[in-house]
């Protein structure tokens, strides 16, 4: 979507070689050419998934460490696109949130269109102390709500983190669950409840 706008912005305002840089960057260009030739669409995984947006382009081009001006600019753009929930209603049902946190399914070519997309949380984060099988790519979120409270600022910050992790850290490893459409508003509310609800096993 915003690739052309962003590229134009960074080229004009910062004088940085964004799109041309990609064209100049032989390694990235060769990789993309090979991928476009050697991948095929299957199930819900179409070839459009190889079309890079601005964030992907920039993170690829600068090996996940882009110049700070570019980083700030794109982060601001990503943050501006975060959709917060209707009426500031951040918290859903933690039990549904737990099921989402446990599920790593969805969006692969073998999932089919009907498979509900999971939140993938446990693949990378520690959450409830009762779940032993947690990943460590992301920070521990154990007792998240208990430790950090439930201030409006924190709710808003956490929502934005789940919705679009790139809004605060441009080349973060974490997917942009809301921004990419992988999770809807209701699902993010459930995951929020799993993190914040005092009854949630995350906080017990």
């Amino acid at each position, binding site marked *: 979507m915003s690739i052309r706008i962003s590229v134009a912005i960074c080229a004009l305002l910062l004088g940085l070689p964004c799109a041309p840089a990609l064209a100049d960057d032989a390694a990235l260009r060769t990789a993309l050419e090979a991928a476009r030739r050697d991948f095929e669409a299957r199930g819900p995984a179409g070839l459009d998934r190889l079309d890079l947006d601005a964030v992907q382009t920039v993170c690829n081009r600068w090996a996940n460490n882009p110049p700070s001006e570019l980083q700030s600019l794109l982060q601001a753009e990503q943050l501006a696109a975060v959709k917060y929930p209707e009426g500031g209603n951040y918290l859903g049902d933690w039990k549904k949130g737990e099921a989402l946190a*446990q*599920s*790593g*399914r*969805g969006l*692969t070519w073998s999932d089919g269109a009907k498979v509900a997309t*999971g939140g*993938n949380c*446990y*693949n990378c984060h520690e959450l409830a102390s009762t779940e*032993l*099988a947690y*990943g460590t790519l992301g920070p521990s979120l154990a007792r998240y709500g208990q430790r950090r409270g439930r201030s409006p600022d924190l709710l808003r910050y956490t929502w934005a983190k789940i919705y679009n992790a790139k809004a605060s850290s441009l080349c973060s490893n974490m997917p942009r669950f809301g921004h990419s459409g992988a999770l809807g508003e209701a699902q993010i509310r459930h995951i929020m409840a799993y993190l914040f609800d005092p009854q949630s096993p995350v906080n017990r």
Partner: protein
Amino acid sequence: MDELRRHILKSGGGAALALLLGAGLLRPTRVLAANWNAPAFESKDVAGALRGLGAGAAQAQASADLKLDAPEIAENGAVVPLEIVSKIPNTSAIAVLIEKNPQPLAGHFEFSGPLLPQVSLRVKMAETSMVRVLALAGGKYYSSSKEIKVTAGGCGG
């Protein structure tokens, strides 16, 4: 096990089998092998499986001489390694039951001759569950159990 044999004799083909047995044409163990114990293996609960094995009424005695060696946490429920060793004298059979599996009875092993009363095997576990092993020795049942936690795998498979 005697009750198992009685069950087989009562069910279909019993008369012919009894005749063959009477004529000494088949050793009892061969008769057992010819008939998979469907009532025990297809039972959806432990009690039914034990009844099917003929161990339903018997009060199994917990025994430290019946050892179940297994990891307490399994990385994958599709393959959980178990090693069972009975030091109980005259052990003639060992059964393995996974309590929370849709069909708890996983295996039944009858030993004779120079075969020592021990077995290692790999089983599927649908979820975290108690695994119970049962040994038959001198007409009495002994048991030992252990909980094995099954963990979720990465990436959603």
